[in-house]
Each structure stands twice: as structure tokens, then as C-alpha cells.
């Protein structure tokens, strides 16, 4: 129902209260964040905490401005972003290809399922040292690490979603004279677009996790590398700055995929 033009006094009151409540929540969140920064700054200025270990918002902001000016920070951010982006794309491409293949050849799918389950429940960081030995240090290893965290689960989930397609709908395609390829293109794939989007949402986060692990162990650039390097030379401003930037990146990615998700879900109902 649309809002009525001549809404009653009670309705107006309700709407006003609801709006005030939303405003309150919004500003209280900002207040919590500002309060935290203020407390942190005060604590380090008044030497309640040792700013050598805990840094301070001002020091981090100063470092941020400095490192942005000399371009070093941007290039590290760029490296992490493209490594995660590439890992994410490769996860998606491989998962769709594998799940599709398994759907067309279910015996092969059944054959590989238990292996995927085992690989998926393995803590993937355990694989990283092995990858380093195989591929050395550098972006290739980092990207493989980035893929390793999400890919097995992504294949598995997508394949299982494909498999659970309503048999009656597949029969519909048969009654219309369609073959297996058309069952896939007309029903199985479009029906699972929402699953695909939510898997993408999870996996962009996992790709970032994997890339950071990779950069910890084998990177020579990137935010993960900055964190490890900073902690080793006790430049904790640098460590915390990198973490803050990671927060922002994660937030943005989440926001973008959420938007995409909402658009798709609206169409798929």
C-alpha cells in the first residue's frame, strides 16, 4: 500500500517516531566511532598507553597523508586489490566451469564430491607453505593462496545447488522438446543466479583473506606485506593503518555486492 495522503494524526506520529529512531541509530554509531578515536587519542597523548605499541589516530592519519603523497601506500593498496580481484575472478570462473561440468556428468561429480568436502574443511592456510615451495614468493603464490580459501566450498555449493534443481521443471523442458543443454541454460543456471550471487558475496571476502595470508608469507608488496613488515620493524602505525584500510576495502566490497544482490533478488521473485 502507498502511504495515504490524508494520514491520521496517529500515523504521522508513528512515522515521525520511526524517523527519529533511525536518525538516533545512525548518529549513535558515528558517536561510538568518534568516541573510540577520541579515547584512543587522549589515552596515548596523556601516556595512559604506550603509543609505541598502540599508536594513535593522529599518528596514523599523518602516516596516511605522508604515504599517500609519496605514492607508496597507493601501490600497496593497488597490489592487494588486484590480487584479490584476480583470485576472486578465478574462483568464480573455475567454480562455474567445474560445477557445470559435474552437473552434465553427475557420475564424475559424485566421484569428486568427497574430495572437495575434505579439501573444503581443511584449514587452507596449511597449504600456503606448500604453495611457496612450488611457486616461490611473489604474486602467483599470493593469488593461489587467495583462491585456495574459497574455491573448494564454492565449487561444492554451486554443484549442490545445481543438483537440487526441481526435477519437475526439468521435465517441463523435456515436454517442450528440450535437451540437456537447454535444461541447463533455461532452468538450472538462471534458477541458481541468486545462489551464485550469494556465493560471490562470501568469496570476495574469502579471496581477500587468502590474499592477506599469501602476502604475509610470500608477498613483497601489498597490505598483508605492510602488516608483517611493519610488525617486524615495530612500525605499528603502519600495521594499524593497513588494518584500517583493509576494513574500508572490505566494507566497500560488501556494499557493492549487497547492492548487486538486492538488484538480482528483486528480479528473481
Amino acid at each position, binding site marked *: 500500500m502507498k502511504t495515504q495522503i490524508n494520514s491520521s494524526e496517529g500515523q504521522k506520529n508513528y512515522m515521525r517516531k520511526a524517523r527519529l529512531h533511525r536518525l538516533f541509530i545512525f548518529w549513535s554509531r558515528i558517536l561510538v566511532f568518534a568516541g573510540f578515536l577520541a579515547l584512543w587519542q587522549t589515552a596515548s597523548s596523556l601516556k595512559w598507553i604506550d603509543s609505541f605499541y598502540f599508536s594513535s589516530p593522529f599518528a596514523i592519519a599523518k602516516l596516511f597523508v605522508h604515504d599517500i603523497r609519496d605514492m607508496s601506500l597507493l601501490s600497496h593498496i593497488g597490489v592487494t586489490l588486484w590480487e584479490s580481484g584476480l583470485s576472486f575472478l578465478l574462483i568464480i570462473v573455475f567454480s562455474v566451469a567445474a560445477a557445470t561440468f559435474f552437473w552434465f556428468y553427475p557420475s564424475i561429480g559424485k566421484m569428486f564430491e568427497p574430495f572437495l568436502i575434505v579439501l573444503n574443511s581443511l584449514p587452507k592456510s596449511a597449504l600456503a607453505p606448500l604453495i611457496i615451495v612450488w611457486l616461490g614468493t611473489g604474486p602467483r603464490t599470493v593469488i593461489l593462496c587467495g583462491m585456495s580459501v574459497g574455491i573448494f566450498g564454492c565449487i561444492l555449493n554451486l554443484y549442490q545447488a545445481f543438483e537440487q534443481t*526441481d526435477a*519437475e*521443471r526439468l*521435465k*517441463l*523442458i*523435456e*515436454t*517442450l*522438446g*528440450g535437451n540437456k543443454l*537447454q535444461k541447463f541454460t*533455461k*532452468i538450472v543456471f*538462471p*534458477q541458481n*543466479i541468486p545462489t551464485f550471487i550469494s556465493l560471490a558475496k562470501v568469496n570476495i571476502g574469502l579471496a581477500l583473506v587468502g590474499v592477506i595470508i599469501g602476502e604475509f608469507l610470500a608477498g613483497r608488496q601489498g597490505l598483508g606485506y605492510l602488516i608483517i613488515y611493519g610488525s617486524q620493524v615495530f612500525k605499528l602505525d603502519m600495521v594499524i593503518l593497513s588494518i584500517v584500510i583493509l576494513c574500508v576495502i572490505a566494507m566497500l566490497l560488501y556494499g557493492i555486492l549487497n547492492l548487486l544482490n538486492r538488484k538480482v533478488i528483486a*528480479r*528473481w*521473485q
Partner: protein
Amino acid sequence: MKSDKPFVHLDHVKFSYYSSQGEVEALRDIDFSVEKGSFTAIVGPSGCGKSTILSLISGLLKPTGGYITFYSEEFAPPKIGYMLQHDHLLEWRDVYKNILLGLEIKKQKTPQNLGLIDSLLEKYNLSDVKHQKPSQLSGGMRQRIALIRTLALRPDLLLLDEPFSALDYQTRLSVSKDVYDIIKSEEKTAILVTHDISEAAAMADTVILLTKPPCRVKDIIPIEFEKHGISRDEVRNSKLFQQYFDKIWRELQNENTNQ
């Protein structure tokens, strides 16, 4: 219109399938024919393989015994349209694109066929909903759209697999009447599988009664309202309808109690 030439003939058709619980004999001896332009209803106890008969006629399954023969003037095998229990309109396509599904699959999106769709939508007052989402339509409307999706392929024979059973009673009455009118005015031959005796008696020219599994034809009952001058619109109120209903009901009842 109805003619006396057989169109489809099932000649002692048998069907068994295998499962981990053992071999299941679904159909033991199915023997009947369907005339061109007629409306045949198949009624039987639940689980007796009524739908299997449709799958066999459509060629989705192959009989394990007997023959299914089609008689037609052309050399091509007849085109078969299928309507399932649920409309299965795809929620990511609008109504019009749902109707196009069959033509897309058959790669027959010709101007004539698109024109046919438009005229069917027009004729049955569904043009307004063309660009709506299936979720915006009522159950009855969805089932009529599903029928148009089937008719778009110009089938010679329509197989209706309990297409109204998912609808509530009120809707079922009106949609079954609509579907009946559409099938008659398009002069299609139809075979309806149903567990609803009144639906069978109200729509069909012939009711085929099946036994419990393993399934045989128990009785073939001609339904002759036209002979008695009763129009299909008012059959449900007629005495004859009650008589047909009782006859079918009794026979089914015997089937359920006889061991």
C-alpha cells in the same frame, strides 16, 4: 470436431521399471484409442500410474511391451503438448517470455508463431498481464498462461497431467472450464489425467477407468451430454452428471475395496 477415426491407439501397452526395492509393474495392460478432436479423461486410484501413460504417449518413456500408434494424415509424427500439475512459470521471466520458452527451445520464434501467441493472449483476455511477473498472477491465471505456452507450439494432441489439482476448489472450477473452452475452440485433441471424478465427467467425452496397480483398463465410459442436449456449461447441475458421477464413483470404490 470429433471424428470417428482413431488418432492415438495404445495396443496392450505394458510398463515396468526397476528400483532398489525391486521391479515395479506399473502398467499391465493398457488398451484404448483416442479419436481426433475428442476429450478423454483417465481416472484411477491414486498411485496407479495414470501419469505414466501420458509420459509413454509423449515419448518421454518407452513402453516395455505393446505399441503406441499415431494415425495422422501428414507423414510427420503428431506434435504433443504437455501440461503439468504445476504451471512452472519461471520467476525470472515475465509472462510473455515464459510463453516463449517452448518456441525458444524449438528455435521456432517465427513471426507466425509470435502472432499466434499475441492472438491467443488477446482472445483469452490475457494481453494486459503480458509484461507482469508470474508472481503477480493468481493461480488460475498462471495455469492459463501455462496452457498458452503449450498451445504456442501448435500441438495436435494435448496431454493434461492433473493440471488443476494444485488450485483451490473455486479456481479449479473456473479454470477447468476456461481450459476446456480454449481446447475446444482451438479444436485440439486432449487427454486429461485426474483423480477428480467430477472434473472428468464434466470435461470429457470418454472416461477411461483404471484398476489398482498393476494397472489395467477397467472400463471405458462414454459421456454423452451433447446427445441429451445438455450444454457443457451447465452439466454440473444436470441429473445425468450425477448419474455419471455415481457410476464412476462406484466402480472406483469397488476397485479400492476388492483385493
